[in-house]
């Protein structure tokens, strides 16, 4: 049994917007073990990015605000650390790669400098050592002639190369936990395949744990050990990867899998669409947030918002209905 690396409990994050208080993350709990890959899946606005940014304390405040919760990294609460302590954790223990490789690099600094920065900040390397290591890292992620390209600026790199460089930067301090926030979404399929291949390879080589955030159930299937599905700021289902795809238990997960066309499937099955759209929560819901789009709903769903409850070993879903029978779970 490997050790618990990150344990998040009851995380809540809100945003103050012009239209009112938006409840973006509403009591999210999950954990990551050493060397394990956790996939967090959900559509835009479901709170998946906000969740990890809250843990790393990267939520701009105002307008954002982490209201409550714990994020224990090796037993220490990230949310209660001093600014200096969390800064030392970021980039060296928990490092993150973001969605858009085009905007995530500083346009007026060389790639080499930006990759070397965490090394200088966390490992007290000299500039020269850090640059030498940066070249090694860029080489590792498959950038040809890495040492000659240290002086290049981001605009001289293609999207795929920038994302490789991003990964190099994130891995520079050998972090035990690597967080990827849709790093391949902005890329073409063939480039995405390169990046996925690279991350899998590096993960196995360094034995790091990974949190992979995406809206793409296909990517998660090939990558994750466990999957958490988010909807309207809640985790609504959580299971081992095979279990989730074989026996999805929450109506939303079922609907999501049914709405995906599959490349390995012939015949024109009609896609099951989930009608309506996700809600924006200005109030913490007193009913199931999926209620209006749900085809399984029973009376209880409109009275009480279900929390995660066990469906099977290591498989939990936040639904009052047993979707295999259509009957109430309780």
């Amino acid at each position, binding site marked *: 049994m490997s050790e618990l690396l990150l344990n998040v409990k009851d995380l809540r994050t809100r945003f103050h917007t012009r239209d009112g208080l938006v409840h973006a993350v509403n009591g999210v709990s999950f954990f990551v073990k050493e060397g394990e890959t956790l996939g967090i899946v959900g559509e835009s606005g479901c709170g998946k990015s906000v969740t990890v940014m809250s843990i790393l304390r990267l939520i701009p405040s105002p307008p954002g605000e982490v209201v409550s919760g714990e994020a224990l990294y090796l037993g220490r609460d990230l949310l209660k650390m001093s600014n200096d302590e969390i800064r030392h954790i970021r980039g060296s223990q928990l*490092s993150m790669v973001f969605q*858009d490789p085009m905007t995530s690099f500083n*346009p007026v600094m060389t790639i080499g400098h930006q990759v070397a920065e965490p090394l200088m900040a966390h490992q007290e390397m000299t500039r020269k050592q850090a640059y030498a290591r940066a070249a090694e890292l860029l080489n590792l992620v498959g950038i040809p002639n890495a040492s000659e390209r240290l002086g290049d600026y981001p605009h001289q790199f293609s999207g795929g190369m920038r994302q490789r460089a991003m990964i190099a930067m994130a891995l520079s301090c050998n972090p035990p936990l690597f967080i990827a926030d849709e790093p391949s979404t902005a890329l073409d399929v063939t480039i995405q395949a390169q990046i996925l291949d690279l991350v899998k390879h590096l993960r196995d080589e360094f034995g790091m744990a990974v949190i992979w955030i995406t809206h793409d159930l296909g990517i998660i299937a090939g990558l994750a050990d466990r999957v958490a599905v988010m909807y309207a700021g809640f985790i609504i289902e959580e299971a081992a990867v095979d279990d989730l795809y074989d026996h999805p238990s929450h109506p939303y997960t079922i609907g999501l899998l049914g709405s995906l066309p599959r490349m390995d499937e012939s015949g024109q099955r009609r896609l099951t669409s989930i009608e309506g759209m996700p809600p924006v929560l200005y109030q913490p819901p007193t009913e199931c947030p999926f209620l209006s789009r749900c085809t399984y709903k029973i009376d209880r769903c409109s009275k009480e918002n279900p929390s995660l409850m066990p469906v099977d070993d290591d498989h939990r879903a936040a639904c009052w209905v047993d979707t295999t029978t259509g009957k109430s779970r309780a």
Partner: protein
Amino acid sequence: MNLFAHIVRRLLLMIPMLIGITLLLFIVTHMVPTNPLTVILPEKSLNDPEIVKAATIKWGLDKPLYQQYLIYLGNLLHGDMGVSFKTKNPVTFDLEQFLPATVELSIASFIFALLIGLPLGIISALKSGSIVDHFTRVIALLGASIPPFWSGLIVLFIFWFKLRWLPGPGRIDARMAAPPTVTGSFLIDSLLAHNMPAFWSSVTHLILPAIILGWFTLAITARITRSSMLEVLQMDYIRTARAKGLTEWVVVIFHALRNALIPLITIIGLAFAGLMSGAIMTETIFSWPGIGRYAVMAATNLDFPAIMGVTLLIAVLFMFINLTVDIIYTIIDPRIREM
């Protein structure tokens, strides 16, 4: 990247602009009903056809307009802007006399504006909504709303006339001789001449006009720094920098400020236009012998060669400032170098 080629190309592009500028000036000053002879000649002589005819020929007023323009352009190429109707000096000579005072005043006011405006802008961006932020906003709005010809008079009234803390108009105490001209800046020249009393007098004379003139630039600087910093701080790469675990200081100064400077530099280039407008007022109030005051003298005396000369000089200065801005741009922003 080829910065040199870029500069050369920009310089070449200035030639058609310069021709356009002279043409516009020429049209403006020649398409009007006012007869320049009424200014050149004493009133009595205007009735004497002989004198009028001689003057017409002397000033080239008998030739067709396009010829007058070509002559004017040809003269310009030889550094000849004509002779001022009023001072009877060559305009180029006059401008040489008046320019250094303006340069000294402008630089002083610019330093004042940047020293205060930049930090003010940065702090109000970092602490948006704070007291500093509101203070900056008020400063910025006042800077754009106070007429410099009025605030100049008010500060003179208070600090010179009432409190007697600072000297009145002029570049230097009237009882002192100006330091021998080397650079044209009284501050530097008096230091070179080891004339400390003259130096102090020059410094104290510079304070009020520099503040009044710099106020507008300060306002723009603070406001643009603020908005540009706010924008940059929202960028993905700032988030990346924070996620790397860099200190806030490094994030703000090295990652954010350098990007925020890019729009700021353009605005500062444009602020020069505001500076020239301000200089016209400020120099008038503070009896500052610069080109702003020369421009007012020329304009109020209908001194056409002088008007054309000083306007041309300001336009050319303006163009060079913009060229400098452009070059600084290419140095700061690597993306532009490729183009």
